[in-house]
């Protein structure tokens, strides 16, 4: 019974994530695409929970939905064309070349067939036992502070560098004036 509930949750959230990803692909309006990406991120976070990664799921929602998506929507708003006087009935429209569409479809479906063949062909020999229902926060904290301390510090430096660089790049919009 519990397995059935888990399977139902897994498949419904997978369908949610994939359907919203397909909506981004076929939508011509970029703002709608950004909101569909919100749904896709939520579906992926639910998949993390079902795979026993509770801390990662919360991090996903906080970083992606709270930070990256808001930043992307800001980017869409800040890159509007200011020079068209007529109010367009289809704002944020993205043109798509037919040749590009064919190339994207071929690349995506070809890679999917390739990956599907690999997944079906592979025989994964799993040694450890499946994760128990305990929280992963303790393990992640201990591992981050012991065996993964150097990547942790490098990540801190990377975030600082990205912060300073992004602020410098975005602040000085027009150096000629």
């Amino acid at each position: 019974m519990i397995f059935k509930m888990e399977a139902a949750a897994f498949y419904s959230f997978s369908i949610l994530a994939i359907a919203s990803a397909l909506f981004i692909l076929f939508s011509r309006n970029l703002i709608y695409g950004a909101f569909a990406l919100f749904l896709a991120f939520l579906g992926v976070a639910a998949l993390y929970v079902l795979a026993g990664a509770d801390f990662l799921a919360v991090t996903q929602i906080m970083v992606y939905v709270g930070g990256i998506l808001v930043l992307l929507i800001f980017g869409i708003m800040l890159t509007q064309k200011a020079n068209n006087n007529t109010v367009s009935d289809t704002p944020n429209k993205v043109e798509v070349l037919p040749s590009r569409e064919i190339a994207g479809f071929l690349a995506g479906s070809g890679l999917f067939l390739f990956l599907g063949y690999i997944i079906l062909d592979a025989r994964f020999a799993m040694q450890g036992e499946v994760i128990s229902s305990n929280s992963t926060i303790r393990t992640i904290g201990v591992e981050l502070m012991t065996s993964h301390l150097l990547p942790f510090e490098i990540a801190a430096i990377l975030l600082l560098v990205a912060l300073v660089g992004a602020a410098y790049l975005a602040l000085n919009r027009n150096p000629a004036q």
Partner: protein
Amino acid sequence: MNTIPLEHYLFVAAALFCIGLAITITKRHFIGMLLGIELMLNAVNINLIAFSRYDPEKLSGQLFALFVIVVAAAEVTVALAIILRVFGHYNTVDPDKVSDLKK
């Protein structure tokens, strides 16, 4: 113990990755391409976390996914700053039109 098979996670991740790749190729808009890249990074994280299910003592996959999230956050901020700068310079967000080093 009866749980979701690993292959199903891998199939969902492969589908999301391929859709992200198609978005990145298809959209003629810098931010549309960023949406596709974010989707691809998420798909990779699903793979890492699905494999990390079988590694409860060390959770290497989850730690790797955490660093992927950190790098994705850094990447998107810098990319957006560059996009805003390019938009201020060329007044377009079409990657095909930004083909000159200097206007």
